[in-house]
């Protein structure tokens, strides 16, 4: 197990021969979105995913952390966003937890519906679903929303 201080939070992780986990605890700020994306890029590089998959993971992590910061924690910097990256032989799994009131993905209108196309927001979930193989939301037992995203390894 290794752990290092992180501005406004921390990151820690552990690795074994078959699985590696990295955890981040981030403040609810716009800057934290870039920090999460950087951590995702490092993690994906270590995991050996290809460039296309790396781009998709980067996009999905940015969108999920953006949702957590803006809509979950409403940029309240006393609340944190927890991000966990897990690498296994079959897939990488990313979970992001906020400390918000809860979220119903079904309540978000389809941004590709003609009446919504010219809206200036509401496309983040579409991108998460487009670029990841699995995306699901749940309520954390201690509060907040957890989004779990999976990118499967493609066998060459």
């Amino acid at each position, binding site marked *: 197990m290794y752990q290092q201080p992180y501005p406004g939070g921390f990151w820690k992780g552990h690795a074994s021969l078959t699985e590696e986990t990295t955890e981040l605890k981030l403040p609810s700020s716009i800057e934290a979105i870039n920090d999460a994306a950087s951590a995702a890029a490092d993690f994906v590089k270590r995991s050996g995913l290809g460039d296309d998959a790396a781009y998709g993971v980067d*996009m999905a992590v940015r969108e999920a952390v*953006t949702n957590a910061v803006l809509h979950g924690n409403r940029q309240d910097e006393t609340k944190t966003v927890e991000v966990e990256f897990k690498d296994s032989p079959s897939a990488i799994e990313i979970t992001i937890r906020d400390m918000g009131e809860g979220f119903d993905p079904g309540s978000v209108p389809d941004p590709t519906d003609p009446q919504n*196309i010219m*809206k*200036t*927001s509401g*496309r983040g979930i*579409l991108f998460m679903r487009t670029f990841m193989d699995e995306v699901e939301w749940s309520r954390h037992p201690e509060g907040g929303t957890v989004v779990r995203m999976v990118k499967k390894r493609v066998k060459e």
Partner: protein
Amino acid sequence: MAELNIRERQAGDITVLDMDGKITIGEGSVALRVAIRRLLEEGKKKILLNLGGVGYIDSSGIGELVSSYTAINKEGGQLKLLNLTQKLQDLLGITKLLTVFDVYDNESDALGSFK
């Protein structure tokens, strides 16, 4: 280095913005918004965004493009896009915005299309 660099040039009454970097939530999206707002204040309403140097854009950046398009149209102007990367074309396809934006891969064609 700034997240998004924007260079402005004139081609007749058309303003071309050559953009280089990322249009993501925060600095990049704000830089685009400020640039478009300033052009409209200066009465420059025919705007061509050269996005050839933009390698990354997130949903906030896409939202900013939509917002720019709406703001310029509202003032009776036109916004067109030039030199989209494949990734940006894909994102506009996924969001069905390729049907909204006027997109070119050749600058002289783009300039000639303004009314």
